[in-house]
């Protein structure tokens, strides 16, 4: 297994791990963290597979994509966190109403 494939598979693993956490955890902070884990997984796939070029010189385009993706993820996380605080302020709980029992 080449390092590139190893990184890509690890990235896929992180994606699935994050997806699992997103579904099973009810607390919104855990859900937001789960998204960040999933996002890191996708970025690792992009960055890892960038090394699989015939010439051996890594492809710079996926790196540019990862940087764009990180900017988007930061903005989304900021919005999610502030929305979570507003939800907690309005409902008294940082969980979505139909998921409080878990």
């Amino acid at each position, binding site marked *: 297994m080449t390092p590139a494939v190893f990184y890509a598979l690890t990235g896929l693993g992180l*994606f699935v791990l994050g*997806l699992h956490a*997103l579904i099973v955890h009810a607390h*919104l902070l855990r*859900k937001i963290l789960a*998204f960040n884990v*999933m*996002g890191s*997984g*996708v970025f690792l*796939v*992009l960055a890892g*597979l960038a090394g*699989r070029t015939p010439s051996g010189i890594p492809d710079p*385009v*996926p790196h540019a*994509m990862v940087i*764009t*993706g990180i900017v*988007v993820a930061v*903005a*989304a996380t900021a*919005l*999610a966190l502030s*929305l*979570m605080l*507003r*939800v907690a302020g*309005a*409902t008294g709980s940082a969980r*979505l*109403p139909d998921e409080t029992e878990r």
Partner: protein
Amino acid sequence: MDTAVLIQSGLTAPILVPLIGALLAFVIRRWASPIGLLSVAALLGAVILQVPELIADGPQRLAVGGWGAPLGVDLYADGLSIAMLLMTAVVGLGISLYAAACFRGTPARGQAFWPLWLLLLTALNALFLSADIFNLYVTLEILGLSAVALTAIVGGADALVGAMRYLLVSLLGSLAYLLGVALLYHAYGTVDIALLAERIDAEPAAWAAMGLMSAGLMLKTALFPLHFWLPPAHASAAAPVSAALSALVVKGSFYLLVRFWVELFGEIAGGVATLLGLLGAAAILWGSIQALVQTRLKLLIAYSTVAQIGYLFLAFPLAVGSGIMAWSGVLYLALSHALAKAAMFLVAGNLLRFGGHDRIADLDRVVQRLPLSMAAFALAGVSIMGLPPSGGFVGKWLLLESALTQGRWGWAIVIILGGVLAATYVFKVVGYAFTQSENPHQAQPVPATMEWVAFALAVAAVLMGLIVSQPLALFEIGNPFRIRTELAAP
């Protein structure tokens, strides 16, 4: 390419005009509302100016910054993109006029609304014009984040929880989409749709990418059974925001599904088309039945959106045998649904302003008191049911014809049954509007603009049924559905 060329090309105007408007409205808060109205009017003008150019010269491509594919960000416009841009600009102008009147009493809310709304229009227009799948990811994210923030501006537990759920769904959809993009780029070395279309092959990487991207977009389009987030978000937002979400935002991700299907996945998908159609049929029946049992008007309208989205997905199986007829029908349905559904949500906003509630059973003789709004609701209902003459009728007729010419009776029955169910829930509302309620209530005045805008949009949805040939000719510019006419040639 220098700045002058960039500005001269009309293709960038639908993106730059609302973007500049959003920034100005954010900085000069006091003038946010006039800036917003001016930007959206300028946007409509810019899009209309594109139409004759497109008819004369065919599809347009612009390499932004002079880089070009496979690395640069290309903008591309054909008949399909222009039709979607026109829909966005027309419905957007209606929603803007309504919002200006609606937020007059609550300036703080209005100041939050305008920058986000203009940003949402920027993202939608960029989505309809982008030609590469990574740039589309960025537009999807801007669209999702601004839509979520717009949902939340009314405050209150319902809207905030609805917005939060919407955000979670939207982010999940985007991440699945991005993973698909990563796989496609790795397998084929480009993110340009046209180049991908030449290189894509039926192999595991393409199938995985198709599954991830389609699932992400289906989640964002709220196709049954992934629709659970839509009714709470659309029903709890402010009236102009609900109209924008139901009329425009869900069409963005649907447009991408159509584009990718035609260009990339259609050839390699096998039986997936039938699956999409079956989910669409389930959405029609489930959404309509849910709409029927709702007691609140905004939830009824939101479930009607779930059902109407189902119709859009019937095109995937039907297009296999009849091509352009099914695609045109479903596009026609999407455009007239945008007009009619915006009108319905705006009417719901008027009734909410008028009576202070939107319980259907307590609609107290609103026909006498708000005749224009109820006329708008009924006219929009005509288009949603698919009665002639209306845009909804033309769309459903084309779908029905494409099902019948192929002898596929199952799909035809679903199309008709959905129309009957739609008639039932529309008449349920209209019926209560005529009767005297057991709890009569104090009525608040509704600004005339808010009534006339809803009425104008509903009339436009009906007029779509009278000008059939021009929109259909517009759809075909640049052959967006890749209908092969050279089949007869050797």
